[in-house]
């Protein structure tokens, strides 16, 4: 029998190295018996991961058939309106949301979130095309969506991967909410009146900033931070 010189544990008869620290066994009195059957089986049966691809393909085919059927029906009935764009766009959006993660599993969460938002953009575009509303789409929907595409994934990425504390995350989320409210009003005002007149969004923004100030103070002062943790059990 051999013992690991590092760990002091007795090793199995066939062990060529310590399984705990990988130190090789060099014992001239007990050469590892390579012919001895291993203590544990080494044959892998190959446990198959679940076939998400098949589920994704099934979902894709279902959504495609819905879109196709609606398109054909639209060519036959109520041809004055492109109503098939509504279910067709919804099918595309649902495909991006649910089928794509099953088919392309290596997509990052950030990438998926961006594509999800863009899918909403495409859906709204199809509605705009169907009702001849390209003007509001370009001047109102596109800026809002672009704003959401830029801001939301960035905030999620910062919170998730920069491992921010709860307080820092709350400050960031509050400021983002205030900024988005201001942006929504800006785009609405520019579309409806052609000029930005901040109103309700200013109240939201100032409230968010007002809430952030005490959080920033708590974040900066260690004694306050500790007290808040104790009081709120975080």
């Amino acid at each position, binding site marked *: 029998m051999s013992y690991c010189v590092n760990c002091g544990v007795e090793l199995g008869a066939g062990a060529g190295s310590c399984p705990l620290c990988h130190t090789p066994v060099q014992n001239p009195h007990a050469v590892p018996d390579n012919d001895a059957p291993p203590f544990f089986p080494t044959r892998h*049966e190959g*446990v198959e991961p*679940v076939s998400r691809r098949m589920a994704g393909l099934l979902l894709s085919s279902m959504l495609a058939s819905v879109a196709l059927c609606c398109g054909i029906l639209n060519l036959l009935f109520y041809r004055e309106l492109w109503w098939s764009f509504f279910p067709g766009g919804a099918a595309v959006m649902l495909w991006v949301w649910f089928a794509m993660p099953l088919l392309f599993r290596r997509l990052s969460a950030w990438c998926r979130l961006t594509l999800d938002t863009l899918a909403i953009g495409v859906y709204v575009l199809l509605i705009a095309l169907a009702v001849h509303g390209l003007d509001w789409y370009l001047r109102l929907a596109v800026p809002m969506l672009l704003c959401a595409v830029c801001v939301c994934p960035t905030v999620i990425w910062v919170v998730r991967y920069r491992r921010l504390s709860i307080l820092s995350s709350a400050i960031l989320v509050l400021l983002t909410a205030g900024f988005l409210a201001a942006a929504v009003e800006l785009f609405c005002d520019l579309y409806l009146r052609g000029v930005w007149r901040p109103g309700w969004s200013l109240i939201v923004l100032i409230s968010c900033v007002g809430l952030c100030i005490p959080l920033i103070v708590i974040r900066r002062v260690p004694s306050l931070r500790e007290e808040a943790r104790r009081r709120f059990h975080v």
Partner: protein
Amino acid sequence: MATVSTPWYRMDNASVMYSAIQREDYSAIYRFSAFMDREVDPAALQRAVDRAMPRFPGFAVRIRRGFFWHYFEPNPSPGPFVREDSADFCRPVRFGEDNGWLVRFLHYGRRISLEVFHAVADGAGALVFFRALLAEYLRQLGEDIPAGCAVDLDSPPSPGELEDAYLRHAGRVSRSFTQVKRAYQDLGTPEPFYTFNVTMGFVPIAQLKERASALGGTVTEYLSAVLIKLLLEKQRQERVHRQRPVALGIPVNLRPYFPTETLRNFIMTVQVSADPRLGDYSLPELVSLVRCQMRLYATPQNLRAVMTRGVKLQYNPLLQLIPSVLKNPIMLRSYRTSGVRPYTATFTNPGYFALPPEMSAHIEHMEVILGQAAVARPHISAIGYGGTMEITFSGTQQENDLEREFFRYLVREGMHVRVESTRG
């Protein structure tokens, strides 16, 4: 024409959770193995399985997906069949595969293994079944094993063995006794699916008992204290921004507290923890802390109150009306909050597996393995048999820091440790 309806029965409180958190790549599974004195005869083992299964109807079941709840029904499929063991220990159970069987019988060299999906039974129940199976296997080999060594396979199954003991012993008052809501998470790098690492250490029970009693604790308390000490040290070395308490989940067998014959689940997890923000702990202090917490929380009153909470939730009329499609994701979420976050690791010790001399002469040692955790962190399990305590670290994480430090610690404490591992 009258139709004969298939018998079925409800899941108990633990089964509901284990079947709800079941995924295609994760199942709550555990394994008991007996290392025999000679090569296993698969044909004799199959005959023993065929004899034992009808006596234990609670293990011969499959899970059906109901609209509101999953439920058990007897499995009429052929099997379960004895198979040669592979390196994929405790691989996930999939309800639609393997004829719906929730138990597996495996053999490799001199080792007989039983893998059980946790929704079917807890460790204590499975050990009763395993003992009867081993006795029958030895009889099939021509050994003279007296009838009193294990459950008589010719006797009819007792209805008490199938009872939902949680429901029977639930009281009126419900409480939650989890002290730490968010413990230090000893997460490692997950291995690719499906790679499962197992490291076993064999330690003389006499040495463990001697050291544990010198510190005023039992073997379980001593081993828990060592684990907590090493996890506290690991967290300190990681230099985390905010240190969190180290908490172990220790499943407690409820049978000694509440009389029941059941072979289904009847366990409850007790949390023992140490908070590093309060200062440093020596090993004697940790043994004392674990001992006090076990004594404080593992009382019949507390256990009944926690049990009642689970049962009330299960039988809540509003929750019962929610379809299982919606309920299961909620339960999965709640499992993360109440079953993963409050614990750093799980340590289970089903106790000493005592066998009569007629059987123990043919079994060299026993092994236990807890299947993968819901996240990539180690599960620790131990079982005593003969003069040896077998301690297993298992999991899907690449790192082996904890097991290395644990066995080195026992060696420094003056114990003889023999290690076997799949890590190579």
